[in-house]
């Protein structure tokens, strides 16, 4: 060899194998739909043959052996001695998975494909062909050329070209591309700074400076190309979706046709990567919950074969990925019942907003989780991950007709079009795709409903709250300032601001990993004058405003940063529970401190009061009962609400907690994010 270390050779093989195995999976799925396509059979054979050879060169004898066994099976097919059945495709797909696992050093469930599978025997689901099933003998004995043109352009993932290959593709480490994009992103702010410097120091209007304009054009081109270098087609994830549809529908005895359209639509690799699990979840969810069995479909007067469709399209600076099925649709009555059970107010919600409830934590879990689609998570996780990519998710459903989920994300999150506003004396950026409208303050459009001010937007009352107050800033905002209406998954909320500054593309940077996740902040950018622009997170703002905006009494004036936030002291000796509760409450917008036992909690309360205490019972030094009693006995703490969260579920324990002075009692067996937040909100509402 060319002096390359064995390690380097294996790394290269792993890269190649990844591409080839992906192609192999695609070919097998197409072959299942086109069993007479000899070209496809030849392509499958060739991929396996090349893999076998490359693995041997890399010294991976086991991988080579596995590829060889699969190759023998395909050879049987190619020679017309074995028909292509679903079981054969099953075996070849499973073998592909096992090859992938062997290359990456991971495990795959299921029996290994061994040499016995290659025999024309009746083992492992393979059948000897009956004469009538035998393939025509006229098959070529050598593999025909691969019909690459039939692979969608975007879906093609050719192996890397060698140095002599000339054009085509090269493999570049992702980290290098990301660093390139980051550096190019820096040029945007540097360019703005130079323009400002020209103006301030040399009194030259940058717009009239030819050199500056040329630099701007070049940098814009550079940014465009750097961004495109990170773009990948949606087809990058559709193969695994197709595979999941096939495997799941077979496992559940459902007949599902998979359609994928617009899969050459390109988007930022990072965005697509973040969305892939969400799309997979929606697809699995559709098969598990949406699509009926063939018999049920026939009874409903439908075709027994269901259709599950992914449609990707670019619309301006956004990409829409729609996953739709022609199944039974979402049972909105059940969603509403569940919402009522959880104490969610659904009065006044539109049909669309009611469907959007299925994305709420707790609700989505109750409605949509099974071991198949949910794997322990609900649609709220889909919403969370889509929102993390600065996107939004919508749902439309009609009983008996079907459901469509739409994930809408910006093509790239590196640069985001933002509306700049001022609130409480500070400038903030609001991602534009979340801004429904902004309008001047008109007293006639403001009224009051359900204990909070609302404005009329498109004939619907939308709650309104000063942005500064929502952020907990002093000087909440001018009552006569303009209003910006933001849209979330199932809610709209208006925010009063001091003034609208304008629109701008903001190069968004993540905040330091040293900082905790701030639910109201999406990131930050650098202004032309070098100052920092904080980019707010609209879904977080809407959620925060919804939690704290409802009050019919006069509001206490905010006195400084964090003044509007309520504080909770979490007391539990178990680190995991403590941190879990802290995370839940912080996400819900509370300031959270923690203590490891009752004594520690009292010390903390003596240093600084909390608005509410959430405590475990069984703890060292001082248990939760004793802590509750101590709080009730302390003159300055006696009015602090106490919520006990314990695994002790007996009535006697509950009664003892109440006797000690607790205001609420949740058992850990019934504990989830929603119940904790609901209980905390309820208790703080009582004492507000």
């Amino acid at each position, binding site marked *: 060899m060319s002096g390359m270390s064995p390690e380097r050779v294996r790394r290269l093989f792993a890269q190649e194998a990844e591409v080839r195995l992906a192609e192999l999976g695609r070919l097998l799925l197409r072959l299942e739909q086109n069993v007479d396509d000899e070209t496809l059979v030849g392509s499958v054979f060739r991929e396996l043959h090349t893999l076998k050879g490359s693995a041997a060169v890399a010294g991976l004898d086991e991988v080579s052996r596995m590829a060889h066994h699969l190759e023998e099976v395909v050879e049987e097919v190619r020679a017309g001695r074995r028909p292509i059945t679903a079981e054969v495709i099953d075996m070849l797909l499973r073998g592909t998975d096992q090859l992938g696992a062997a290359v990456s050093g991971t495990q795959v469930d299921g029996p290994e494909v061994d040499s016995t599978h290659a025999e024309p025997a009746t083992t492992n689901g393979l059948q000897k062909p009956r004469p009538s099933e035998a393939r025509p003998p006229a098959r070529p004995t050598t593999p025909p050329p691969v019909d690459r043109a039939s692979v969608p352009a975007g879906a093609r993932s050719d192996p890397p070209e060698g140095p002599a290959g000339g054009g085509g593709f090269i493999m570049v480490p992702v980290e290098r591309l990301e660093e390139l994009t980051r550096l190019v992103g820096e040029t945007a702010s540097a360019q703005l700074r130079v323009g400002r410097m020209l103006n301030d120091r040399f009194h030259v209007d940058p717009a009239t400076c030819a050199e500056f304009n040329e630099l701007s054009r070049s940098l814009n081109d550079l940014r465009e190309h750097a961004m495109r270098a990170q773009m990948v087609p949606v087809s990058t994830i559709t193969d695994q979706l197709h595979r999941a549809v096939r495997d799941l529908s077979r496992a559940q005895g459902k007949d599902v046709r998979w359609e994928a359209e617009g899969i050459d639509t390109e988007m930022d690799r990072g965005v697509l990567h973040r969305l892939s699990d969400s799309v997979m979840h929606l697809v699995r969810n559709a098969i598990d919950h949406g699509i009926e069995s063939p018999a049920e479909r026939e009874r409903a007067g439908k075709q027994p074969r269901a259709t599950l469709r992914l449609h990707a399209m670019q619309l301006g600076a956004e990409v829409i990925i729609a996953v739709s099925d022609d199944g039974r649709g979402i049972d909105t009555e059940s969603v509403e019942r569940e919402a009522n059970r959880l104490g969610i107010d659904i009065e006044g919600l539109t049909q669309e907003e009611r469907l959007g409830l299925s994305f709420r934590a707790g609700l989505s879990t109750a409605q949509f989780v099974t071991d198949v689609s949910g794997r322990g998570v609900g649609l709220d996780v889909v919403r969370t991950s889509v929102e993390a990519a600065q996107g939004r998710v919508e749902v439309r459903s009609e009983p008996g007709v079907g459901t469509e989920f739409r994930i809408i994300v910006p093509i790239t999150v590196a640069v985001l079009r933002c509306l700049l506003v001022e609130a409480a004396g500070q400038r903030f950026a609001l991602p534009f795709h979340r801004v429904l409208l902004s309008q001047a303050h008109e007293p006639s459009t403001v009224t009051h409903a359900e204990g909070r001010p609302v404005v009329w937007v498109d004939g619907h009352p939308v709650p309104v709250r000063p942005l500064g107050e929502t952020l907990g800033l002093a000087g909440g905002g001018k009552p006569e300032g303009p209003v910006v209406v933001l849209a979330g998954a199932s809610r709209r909320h208006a925010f009063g601001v001091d003034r609208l500054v304008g629109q701008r593309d903001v190069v968004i940077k993540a*905040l*330091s990993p*040293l900082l*905790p996740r701030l639910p109201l902040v999406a990131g930050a950018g650098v202004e032309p004058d070098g100052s*920092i622009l904080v980019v707010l997170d609209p879904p977080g703002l809407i959620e925060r405003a919804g939690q704290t905006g409802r009050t019919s009494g006069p509001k206490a004036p905010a006195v400084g940063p964090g003044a509007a936030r309520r504080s909770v002291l979490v007391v539990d000796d178990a680190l995991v529970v403590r941190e879990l509760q802290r995370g839940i409450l912080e996400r819900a917008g509370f300031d959270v401190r*923690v203590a490891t036992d009752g004594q520690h909690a009292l010390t903390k309360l003596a240093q600084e009061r909390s608005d509410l205490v959430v405590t475990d019972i069984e703890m*060292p030094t001082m248990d939760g009962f004793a802590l509750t009693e101590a709080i009730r006995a302390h003159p300055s703490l006696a009015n602090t609400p106490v919520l006990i969260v314990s695994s002790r579920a007996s009535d006697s324990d509950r009664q003892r907690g109440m006797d000690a002075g607790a205001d609420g009692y949740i058992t850990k067996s019934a504990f989830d994010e929603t119940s904790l937040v609901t209980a905390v909100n309820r208790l703080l509402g009582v004492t507000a």
Partner: protein
Amino acid sequence: MTDVHVLLLPVGADLYALPVDWACEVVTAPTLTPLATAPPVVIGLFNLRGQIVPLLDTAGLLGLGRVEATAFAVVVTGAHGLAALATTGFPRRQMLDVPTGPSDLPGTTGLYQVGQQVAALLDPPALLSPERVRDPAARLDLTSTGGG
């Protein structure tokens, strides 16, 4: 005992010593942008040649209240990227000799004599952790398992 090369950080009436290897640079009174909803120890964000750096309240991290006014920001690079510690006076280099005694504050590793003053040597990995930024007073008891 090996001498410790440090940067002395005046914080109010106190003096803290940061091992010099941790310090990247000192910025004079950076222009700060408040970060709404951040923990109280985050004084704000500033722009360091295009990088967004959080300025942390040194006194707050140690559980000692708040720095009154930031005169200088000492930029520190750690496992979680860049951050800066606020000081109320000009930081200067110093060689620390033997410790004069143990320190009480979590996030410090000993007391040293500096002229007529005493400096507490900072423990940057302990001080510059997400847990401490989130809640400087928290005790993370990793050994407890809890029941209840």
